[in-house]
């Protein structure tokens, strides 16, 4: 009888061990949804390249476990993103989802994904909804809260005592968020506030209005191709020497700088990462990126790479158990990793508390444009939505 019992319990132990081992052996599945086609395709490419480079560093593992990544193109359309997210959660059974660059796409996929118990770790988009009322224990922004980049430049322009500005942004929610963020900290006079059509091509009419208004500076937010159009035309109108340009991160980074050319020289940015960051992890990243892809990385790629480092450390800390979401969340909340941004920690709403720096576009020794690192504008900037977030346990 006892013999029998021992045999049984041994078998049970063995079976338990076997399933444990197989769960540990099965690769971690990650879904990476981003915009890979259309004009915004260059952004998705930066994000995907940064992520791939991060995984190349860890040898395609996270916390010692093998990783399989499913990539998909959302075409910058919310419903297509949602379809991929559904597929990845239900068919591919991913453990972690990431990659989305547009806020409207993220808002369309976030709720069903998070409610299904999948972790979403954002490499880019950080809409205010998810930082505030709709915050969720399974959502982490490894990137930033959208408003903070323009808040930081607002802080800088306020400190610098610039007495009046002209504001330009595209007429869509992220554009309005950016302006709201800017005005949260900049208290000088706003002599003009113009919202242009999304993906507008010609800015000559707006530039003529700036010339007539004669502000001390211009704050603008034009990501991607819009920024290229605006900066080139602003420079050709001869205004750049008279009225300096200020913007938040991602507008004059390396995903568009080569196309802007010399027109971008002198544009000031508040950023969370620049290609000149002196810490060792950042140097290693910048060098590896340039070696692999033949171009200087942008903060998009940097945040994406940093996300891999963060996941690697957190999964290692929870002993590779991605199925134990509570433990993984606790490990992520600690953010105990060597970030290429230097200081990085999470606020109560799972959005970053991080430093912002001033950069100015200049030419390097090889004649290439880069964002020259300036002073630190603000230390440990928190977003302004965390107070409205009550995280369900």
């Amino acid at each position, binding site marked *: 009888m006892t013999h029998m019992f021992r045999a049984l319990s041994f078998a049970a132990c063995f079976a338990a061990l076997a399933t444990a081992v197989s769960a540990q052996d099965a690769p971690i599945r990650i879904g990476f949804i981003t915009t890979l086609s259309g004009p915004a395709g260059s952004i998705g490419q930066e994000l995907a390249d940064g992520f791939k480079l991060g995984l190349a560093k860890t040898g395609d593992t996270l916390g010692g476990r093998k990783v399989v990544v499913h990539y998909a193109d959302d075409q*910058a359309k919310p*419903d297509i993103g949602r379809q*991929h997210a559904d*597929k990845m959660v239900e*068919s591919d059974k991913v453990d972690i989802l990431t990659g989305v660059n547009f806020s*409207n796409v993220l808002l*369309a996929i976030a709720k069903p994904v998070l409610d299904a118990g999948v972790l979403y770790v954002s490499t880019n988009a950080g809409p205010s909804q998810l930082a505030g009322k709709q915050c969720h224990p399974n959502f982490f922004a490894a990137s930033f809260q959208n408003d903070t980049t323009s808040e930081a430049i607002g802080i800088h322009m306020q400190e610098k005592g610039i007495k009046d500005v002209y504001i330009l942004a595209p*007429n*869509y929610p*992220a554009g309005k968020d950016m302006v709201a963020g800017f005005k949260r900290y900049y208290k000088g006079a706003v002599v003009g506030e113009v919202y242009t059509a999304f993906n507008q091509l010609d800015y000559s009419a707006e530039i003529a209005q700036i010339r007539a208004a004669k502000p001390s500076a211009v704050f603008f937010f034009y990501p991607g191709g819009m920024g290229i159009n605006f900066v080139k035309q602003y420079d050709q109108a001869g205004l750049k020497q008279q009225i300096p340009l200020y913007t938040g991160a991602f507008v004059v980074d390396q995903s568009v700088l080569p196309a802007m050319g010399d027109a971008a020289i002198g544009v000031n940015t508040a950023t969370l990462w620049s290609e000149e960051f002196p810490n060792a992890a950042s140097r290693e990243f910048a060098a590896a990126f340039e070696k692999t892809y033949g171009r200087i990385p942008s903060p998009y790629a940097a945040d994406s790479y940093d996300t891999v480092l963060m996941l690697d450390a957190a999964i290692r800390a929870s002993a590779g158990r991605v199925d134990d979401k509570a433990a993984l969340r606790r490990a992520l909340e600690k953010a105990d990793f060597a970030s290429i941004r230097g200081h990085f920690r999470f606020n109560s709403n799972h959005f970053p508390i991080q430093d912002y720096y001033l950069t100015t576009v200049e030419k390097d020794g090889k004649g290439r444009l880069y964002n020259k690192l300036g002073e630190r504008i603000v230390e440990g900037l928190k977003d302004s939505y965390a107070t409205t977030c009550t995280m369900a346990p």
Partner: protein
Amino acid sequence: MAEFDPHLPRPVERLAPIVVVGLLAAVPPLAQVLGDPFLIKVATRVIVFAIAAVALNLVLGFAGMVSLLQAGLFGVGGYVVAIAAHHIFEAEPIGIAGLAWGGSADLALTLPLAAVVAGLMALVTGMVSLRTSGPYFLMITLAFDQMLYYGAVALQKYGGDDGLQILTPLTLAGWDVSNRWRFFYFALALLAVTLLVVGRLVGSRFGIVLRAAAENERRVAVSGIPPYPYRLAAFVVSGAVAGLAGGLLAAGQQFVSPADMHWVRSGDFVVMAVLGGLSTVWGPVVGAAAFVVLELLLSSWTQHWQLVFGLIIVAVVLSLRGGLADLVHLLGRSGGAR
């Protein structure tokens, strides 16, 4: 364009819609067996797009007019359902012309409302658009589509470009439809009704006038029948059904966004109809299925999927004049010859 043929319903035309609906009906049990519930979601999306494409084909294939307004009307339907649900969630009544309405999360009310609002939009825009023809019609419907699109982007109260999420559970006359099986069969039933209604319309005197006018406008006008009211009626019916489909999409994925209304989406509907075959009522269903599945598979298979997709479109237009429905007819013909 559809060849003019007053005796459209051949045996294959009667059988094919039943086969198509039957095949779709088999998807949920199949998904259950395969343990992949996502298939039901894909099939639901196919059905929703199929309804809009079948409706478009009334204007495109049978009346011979290329409209790029379908996505706009589709989106209007989506916004009606989403806004009605939004006001329930926010417990804030909508004031219309002095009357207050609390909103609704009941699809038995909001889906017909979506169809009515989209139909009215189609009536107003159709009255203007149908004064033009050919490429001018294509461009004026594009203009109206972009106006609706920018109108939705400007709806700051309802999320603007971010779109609007439906955070209230939706019901159908008190019946919970959040279960994906139920929602699927509900959508399928609507597709079946759409096929039936459009089939009847096309075969009726109304459809004959429509098709004859597409073939030779002058001859129809000379015989004393002005094509304009017929075309307008077709445009309104097509738009109303598109609104219904848009409402279904919003209900199914629980959000709506201006991206659903962009003219490129209208182009997608045209591609679906052409891919499936313009001369049949059921062809666009096959086209919608091919489109949705191809897009999903290709875009998760290769980053350069649009290259492949573009080549497929070119190949289809170049070789299959009657779309995928042609394949069925070819098979039917070779089978009959034996």
